[in-house]
């Protein structure tokens, strides 16, 4: 009952249980944080808008993205993954979400940013429905913790519209 083996076993079990408990509490403490993010996106220019040989429309645009995500960082946050998706409907598809740009915010200091960029990923439709299309730009963020549960949310910005003709 008091051999080395039993003592080592009891010690290790206790240590692992406490470690697991600490990870759970760290994760639960993230719920106490109530974030208040803000963001703004502008489409500065439509660079080109064409129908590709495979029949799908494609757009290239320059975006001006500014956001303040500092309130999202807690001591248990490893990074925040942020991306912008264009959302729209077509006659064939009830929902389309295409990611245009993403970035990783490693720390609170970098969480208030302003960036001027063309879309990092191609804005391509399944089909040829984009002329004159109204779409929303949604800023999504995923808070990835050091341990525990991940959180995600978004801000929807509407009122964007693609040109009626190819250019």
């Amino acid at each position, binding site marked *: 009952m008091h051999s080395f*083996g039993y003592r080592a076993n009891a010690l290790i079990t206790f240590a692992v249980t406490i470690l697991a408990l600490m*990870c759970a509490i760290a*994760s639960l403490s993230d719920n106490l944080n109530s974030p208040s993010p803000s963001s703004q996106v502008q489409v500065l220019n439509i660079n080109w808008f064409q129908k590709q040989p495979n029949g799908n429309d494609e757009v290239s645009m320059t975006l001006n993205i500014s956001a303040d995500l500092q309130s999202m960082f807690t001591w248990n946050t*490893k*990074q925040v*993954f942020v*991306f912008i*998706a264009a959302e729209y409907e077509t*006659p*064939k*598809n*009830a*929902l*389309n*979400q*295409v*990611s245009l740009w*993403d970035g*990783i915010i*490693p720390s609170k200091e970098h969480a208030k940013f302003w960036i001027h960029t063309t879309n990092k*990923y191609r804005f391509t439709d*399944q089909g040829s429905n984009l002329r004159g299309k109204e779409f929303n730009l949604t800023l*999504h963020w*995923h808070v*990835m*913790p*050091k*341990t*525990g*549960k*991940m959180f*995600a949310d*978004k801000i929807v910005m509407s009122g964007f519209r693609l040109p009626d003709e190819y250019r």
Partner: protein
Amino acid sequence: MDSFRSISIRRSTTQAINLGMMMTSALMMWKLWMCVSGTESPVVVVLTGSMEPGIKKGDLLFLHMNQSPICSGEIVVFNVEGKEIPIVHRVVTVHEERETEKVTILTKGDNNRVDDRHGVYADGQLWLEQNHIQGRVMGFLPYLGWATIIMTEKPVIKYILIGALSLLVITSKE
């Protein structure tokens, strides 16, 4: 002499039953976890560095799956036909057809320059569908998957561990 032998038979039978009970209750808990989380593998170990720096090789991921539609930005685990190991990447594009409600998905690893059509999907495959997705990532614990990676890369260690554990259970006096 007879009573001596029957005591030791009783003791070894008890030990065998105890061992069996431990193994079956572990199996029952695992199956229960599979039911609750809705996926066949509710816990996976990250094997590649394609999602760094957020999710590193050796991290342990907890999965959950239900019928609600997959949104862009979610981190999902999926299988590609012809490849055995499941892949953990993020969804970048979703299209949902109005009539059939069929969902097509494009994924990309955070640390990869290009999306998964270049190198991850099967030849000629452009999209994933909802039934390819095994689960979405809900939470994770860092570093805990290394034990599994070591045991897979050097199976000797796995056999040594199982052998040692069985020896411990058999030779324990209670």
